[in-house]
């Protein structure tokens, strides 16, 4: 098992290198000279030169790449051109709402998705199953930002239950924070719960076909005991994996939903950076989110080991 963990960590190195290189290349993909693109059409020659020096764009490309890797190794993401502060600082300022929103959304998606999937498998091929699965398919068909807009329309504009948009930071009390995140978290979480429900159903159906289930029924166990004690435990293994993957998907979903609700998180940060051509911030946020995504996927792989002792790792 130790060698497996070591091998997985080692396998992360080339992927991380590719990720860092892609982030580096971004700034050079733009047509024309990057410094003048960043400076904008009405910038003076001095401005362009300042940016060129600040970003080290005057060095040859291989030198730039080596310097880029060196800086990343030291945890230095450079300085924002527009915000005039280190990118790491800008990211730390914005990470709270995004993380809270993601956690809230994952809680919602589990609480709704898992029972719906189990119920659907329990009553396989009945009306309950079909209705739940059509709802779930509708759920995977709604983009989260659209659901967010519809929520604003129904719950904020028409019913007036929630604020239309905005975010209340934790320092003003967690209840206010929670209230400001209810609609965006549901917009994100409901879509994801549809996916989790579909997975939970499929894995539950797979487990219900196993021999130990038949054995359980044969020895006279009641249907609830079979479903909730024997089947559920085993069906949870793939479901937990998907919940981990969902977490990663939700972080990126939060990037979009934040715009709908005007939440000052990582999503707003990267979008405003794109509109201002603030490349260091774009690179930083992209790297930060990709890093989280990779770590979570790794954690999911490792959790598989804990949940499924049958799987052998060499």
């Amino acid at each position, binding site marked *: 098992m130790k060698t497996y963990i070591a091998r997985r960590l080692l396998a992360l190195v*080339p992927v991380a290198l590719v990720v860092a290189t*892609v982030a580096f290349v971004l700034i050079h993909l733009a047509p024309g000279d990057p410094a003048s693109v960043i400076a904008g059409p009405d910038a003076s020659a001095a401005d362009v030169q300042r940016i060129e020096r600040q970003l080290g764009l005057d060095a040859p490309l291989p030198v730039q790449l080596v310097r880029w890797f060196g800086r990343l190794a030291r945890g230095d993401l450079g300085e924002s051109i527009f915000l005039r502060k280190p990118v790491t600082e800008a990211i730390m300022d914005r990470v709270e709402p995004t993380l809270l929103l993601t956690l809230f959304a994952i809680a919602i998606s589990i609480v709704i998705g898992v029972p719906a999937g189990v119920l659907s498998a329990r009553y396989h091929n009945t009306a309950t199953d079909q209705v739940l699965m059509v709802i779930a398919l509708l759920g995977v068909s709604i983009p989260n930002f659209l659901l967010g807009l519809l929520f*604003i329309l129904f719950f904020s*504009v028409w019913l007036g239950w929630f604020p239309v948009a905005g975010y209340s930071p934790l320092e003003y009390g967690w209840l206010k924070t929670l209230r400001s995140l209810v609609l965006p978290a549901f917009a994100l979480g409901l879509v994801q719960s549809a996916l989790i429900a579909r997975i939970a159903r499929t894995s539950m159906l797979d487990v219900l076909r196993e021999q130990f289930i038949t054995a359980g029924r044969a020895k006279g166990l009641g249907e609830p005991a079979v479903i909730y004690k024997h089947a559920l435990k085993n069906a949870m293994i*793939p479901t937990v994996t998907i919940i981990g*993957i969902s977490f990663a998907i939700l972080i990126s979903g939060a990037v979009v939903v934040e715009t709908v609700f005007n939440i000052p998180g990582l999503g707003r940060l990267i*979008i405003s950076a794109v509109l201002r051509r603030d*490349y260091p911030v774009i690179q930083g946020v992209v790297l930060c*989110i990709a890093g989280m995504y990779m770590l979570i996927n790794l954690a999911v792989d490792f959790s598989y080991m804990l949940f499924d002792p049958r799987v052998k790792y060499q």
Partner: protein
Amino acid sequence: MSVIALPQAESARRRAGPHWTVLLVRRKTTLAGAILMALMLLLGILAPLIAGDPAHMDVSGRLAAPGRAHWFGTDDVGRDVWSRVVYGARLSLLVGAAVVALSFVVGIVCGVVAGYYHRLDNVVMRVMDGLMAFPAIVLAIALMAALGPSVVNVIVAIAVVYSPRVARVVRGSVLVIRETAYVEAARALGASDVILLARHVLPNCMSPVIVQGSFTFAASVLTEAALSFLGVGVPPYVPSWGVILAEGRLYIQQAPWLVLYPGVAIMLTIFGLNLFGDGLRDLLDPKIRGLATERQRAA
């Protein structure tokens, strides 16, 4: 005698079986998906006939409620929402089809190369892994930041995001098929690599790729809408569902139809694609039913 005749009779019956299109639409949900997709396609193709100019502004009639003159109402500068939604369908389908085509070409070439030539496998797949380490929408946003807003760039950015996923599916199939007896037989007969790949390997790994294609189509329609909604997709003058939603968001209190109609259009399109994709998967790729495709969808 009858014992020998039996299998023959059966295979004859199978040959006379229903055409694959009949099999595909036999399931009601798949048929519903196909109908939804056909409707959207029709809207997109007939756009110039059934809709007016999506860019025509009539400031005196701004934010008019849906009525006889404007079925879906008008927006903040008096443009007809029906026309914009119809032309939006055209754009969505164009982006979806172009992304599928482009990511198929790139993905199949990379996947075949990685799966067939052992030496290149590691290099190609590590690059693909690296691209897949970015969440889809985040990579698309970053690429759009570099490329700048245009319809072509949206297509390129989304194709870059989804090509590695096609490549992975293709590589997986090629790895299995290259070891089969018929490929070995063809090689023994002296077939060149190109002939082997084109005639024997590729046609046999297309099923999962086509299934992946239906999900890629849905994902690109969604991603284009999301990018345009965020203001980093197509330029604002192009009628896209995402652009209409982004503009409508500001007037959600006075003019909810600005959000409702394009929203319903997106939902129906993705819903139709998902229904159809599920049917396609069950027909073409019964082995990977269930978890594997759910993961494909999630990715």
